[in-house]
Every structure is written in C-alpha cells, then in structure tokens.
C-alpha cells in the first residue's frame, strides 16, 4: 500500500480505459483496403448467413414434426431474419476497393438475397403455421444453404 498520494488514479485507470476503447473499436465495421480484406469480409458474411439459414432449417424441420411450439419457431426464425438483414447491411456498407471486388459483391449479395428470401418465406409460413408449406421450404432453405457453402468454398480459394 503506497499510502502516499503520489500515484494519480488516472494513471492506474489508463489500462482499463484503453481496454474499453479497444473493445469498442473491435466491434465496429472496419473498411476493406485491399481485395484480400474485402474477400475476408465476404467469407465472414457468408459464414454467418450459413449459420442463420441452418438455424431456420433446423427449427422448421422441428416444427414440421411438432417438436417446437409455433411461437418458439417464430421467435427463432424472426431472430435469424433480423440477423440476415444485419449481415447483408453490414456487407453492403463496405466499399469494394477495386472493380475486381465488385464481382465478389454481386455474387455475395445475390446469394445472401436468396437466403434472406428463403427465410422470409419461412417466416410467412411459420406465422400462419402452414403445415403444407414446410416440405417445400425445407428444400428452399437447403438449397440456399448449399449455395452459401459453395460460395464460401469458392471465396476461400
């Protein structure tokens, strides 16, 4: 206990403040300066979207077997839809660094859009509890998921 009032609290708090600041920055959308960075962002967006589509696929298959209640399925689907929106929005907000990256943008946004559509269709059916639609939706979600995986593999090359 250095009991003399020599060490200002400010200095002691500096690491804490620094950590908080770093943390805040880590959560922000950073710009992509090179095609490589842009590609990495595309992979991250596609991976995250895959997870959401797979979630919706799982909950719909559970709902079709009456393993979850309709409100629960609705909650899960809606959350994934919101997440997909955010993923699309965040990726769209990144400026492609070169014309070459524009092609990546077009490809990614098309596949993300399809995934988003499939999930939205699912939401319609789940809210109506339209049993008859689930088989087709599972197929649509499955193919959206496949497209995402294929795209991810291509981007990672």
């Amino acid at each position, binding site marked *: 206990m250095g009991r003399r009032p020599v060490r200002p609290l400010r200095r002691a708090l500096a690491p804490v403040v620094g950590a908080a600041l*770093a943390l805040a920055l*880590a959560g922000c959308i950073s710009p992509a300066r090179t095609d490589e960075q842009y590609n990495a962002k595309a992979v991250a967006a596609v991976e*995250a979207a895959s997870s959401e589509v797979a979630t919706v696929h799982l909950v719909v298959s559970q709902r079709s077997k009456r393993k979850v209640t309709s409100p*629960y399925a609705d*909650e899960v689907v809606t*959350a994934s839809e919101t997440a997909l929106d955010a993923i699309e929005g965040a990726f769209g907000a990144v400026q492609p660094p070169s014309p070459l990256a524009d092609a990546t943008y077009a490809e990614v946004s098309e596949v993300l859009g399809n995934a988003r559509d499939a999930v939205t269709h699912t939401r319609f059916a789940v809210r109506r509890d339209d049993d008859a639609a689930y088989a087709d939706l599972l197929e649509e979600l499955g193919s959206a998921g496949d497209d995402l995986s294929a795209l991810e593999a291509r981007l990672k090359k």
Partner: protein
Amino acid sequence: MKRIFSVALGVLTAIGGFVDIGDLVTNALVGARFGLSLAWVVVVGVLGIVVFAEMSGRVAAITGRATFDLVRERLGPRAGLLNLAGSMAVTGLTFIAEIGGVALALELVSSVHYLLLVPFTGLAVWLVLWRVRFSTLENVFGLLGLALVVFGFAVWQLGPDWGSLLDQATRPSVPGSEGVPTYWYYAVALFGAAMTPYEVFFFSSGGVEEHWTEKDLGTSRLNVFVGFPLGGVLSIFIASSTALVLLPAGIEVDTLGQVGLPVSEALGRVGIAIALLGFFAATFGAACETGLSVGYSVSQYFGWQWGKYVRPRQAALFHVVLLVSTIAGVAVLLTTVDPIKVTEYSVVFSAVALPLTYFPILVVANDPDYMGEKVNGRLANGLGQVYLVLVTLAALAAIPLMLLTKAGQ
C-alpha cells in the same frame, strides 16, 4: 431428517444456482463451434471456483467477514477502490446480461419483444431484492434452475457415440475450422464464466446472511464440493447438446432461442418447455445474485450495514445501491445492446477481474490470527497457488486475445 433435508436442499440449490446466463451462452456457443474440445476448461474452472468458494465461505463462517471486507482491509482504500471499480464493472455487466437473459427467456415464451419485457423484469428483480427473504430467493430459484438437467436428458436421448464424445473431451485439439487464438479466447471465456467473481462475493456474503458459524462449515463445504461440480456437469451437458445438434448443422449460437434447439430436437415440446423454465430460473436467480453482489461489495467497501438479514430500513444505503444499480441495468439494456453480446463480454472481463478477488481471499484464509485452527491446509494452499497463477495468466491473456480474434470471430 430435517438436517438431511436442509443439506440436500443446499446441494440442490448449489447445482441449480451454478449455471447463469454466462455459463449457458458460453457453453452452448463453445459446444457448437468446438465440440467438447474445450470441456477441460470447465473442469479446471469448476475446480477453481470450488477452491475459492470454500475458502471464502470458511473465512465468512469463522470471522464473519465477507469478500469485499477482506479486499478493503488487505489492499487498503486505494487498491481496494480500484478493485471495487473493476469488480463492480464486471459484476454490473453480468447483472445487465442476466436481466437481459430473463427478458429473452420470457420473449421465447410470450412472443413479446424482449425490450418491452426489460422494465418489467427489472421491477420484478428489484421487488425480489426488496421484499423476498434471502433463503426463499436462494431455494426457489436454485431448485427451479435444476430444470436445466433437461439438457442431460436431451444428450442421453440423442444417443451420441459416447466414446467419441469422451475422446473429444479427454484429447482436446483445436478443430480445423478454427484458429488457435480463437480456441484460447474461448478457453479464457469459459474459464471466466465458470469462475465469475460475483460467485464468491455472493457465496461469502450469503454465509454471513445465513449466520454461518464454525458448525456450518461441513454443510457449506458439502454445497461447494458436491453442488458446484454437478453444476459444472450441467454446463458440460449444455455444451455436449449443442455439439451434437448444432455443430454438425453448421449453426453458431448467437441467440438464446438457438440454445434450446438441441433440447427440442431430442425431447420435443415438453423438453423445450422445461428448458425455458430452466433458462428463466437460472437467469432470474443469477440476476438477484449479481444485483445483491453489487450492493454487498459497495457496502462492504464503505462499511455500511448490508444484507437481507436486517430490515431494509436498517440497511438503507445498501438498498439504495440495489435500487440504483437495477435502474442503471435496465437503462443500459434499453439502449438496445444485445444481451447475448453483453454476456460474451462479461465472461471475458470476469477473467480479467479474477486475481483482484482471489488474492485477498487466499491471504486471509492463511491468517492464523483470524482463522485459528481453520487456516488453509496444504491442499487448499497448493490449489490456491496454482489457481492464483492460472487466473493471473487468464487475466493477462484475455484482452490481447480479444483484440487478436476480434472477440472470437
């Protein structure tokens, strides 16, 4: 008979009360990404919390001093205040995450948007802190929290290849799809989730609330030695369930709704209903515990009368702290921060704050003037020292790993 009942009750509530939003989310998330390759961290973390909870409980029983009393008297007002600020930042973050978790669990039941439920949840938490007896609070939410055992049934029902699960857990390796820093980042997060500092603030203050004396040491130890490890088993079940259902499907956990899906997969609607009850009880109970921990720690630093063993009017400043922190917690949630993200950060910052709490406990548990015959034995000291090194390493590694992995992305 009555004695057996009370001992059993204590152990059961220790199990049910062990899991909170941090354990729930972190284990589910890690299971879905890393399978059981990080289960060893839960084992290490649970042993750590057992060692320090036992020590802090023993100190509370023998001397009547709870954790933040010790922090203040051994570290002095300055280092103590810094410690208080750090520990309260982390505990406050956890408190926010728990209230948010309650609201999210209720949203899954009611389909009402969680933000509308947050003020109601805050009010309910405060009413419990204000009106409900300490023992009632502990017993009710601890017992209801046992509903999370449904994750164990789910794993069993899913009929996994037990050999391969055990293999994953006992011979851990970084999965090919994940980077090594990410693996260690989540190792630190799981460690922080298992050893959250509020658990010792609450456990030791709870001992004083319940007027433990030397005679209660046996009961308190049984709660810790049996209840906490079984709570840890519950954590591993949660991770196993997501490892079995979500990992193969390529699902990463970012909502509470996803955490329940393995249970509904295995056990259907009844299962998910029980899981939701468990989510609610675990988060609500932990919201009360973290809220109380903030009040306990601030009051203990300044020496104010604290505790629910006296009427609120006799511990006025303590109740002011409870009220203010609940309002502040609700206010933060109403900024629409994602409670699951708050949870993820809270467990990592818990890891940063661990040495602050555990060092003074270890010192005082060895002070013969206080503890007499009941000073730490060789085992407690051996483990205590190993864990002091471990928590320090985890604390130092936490922030760099967070930056390096962009918080685990």
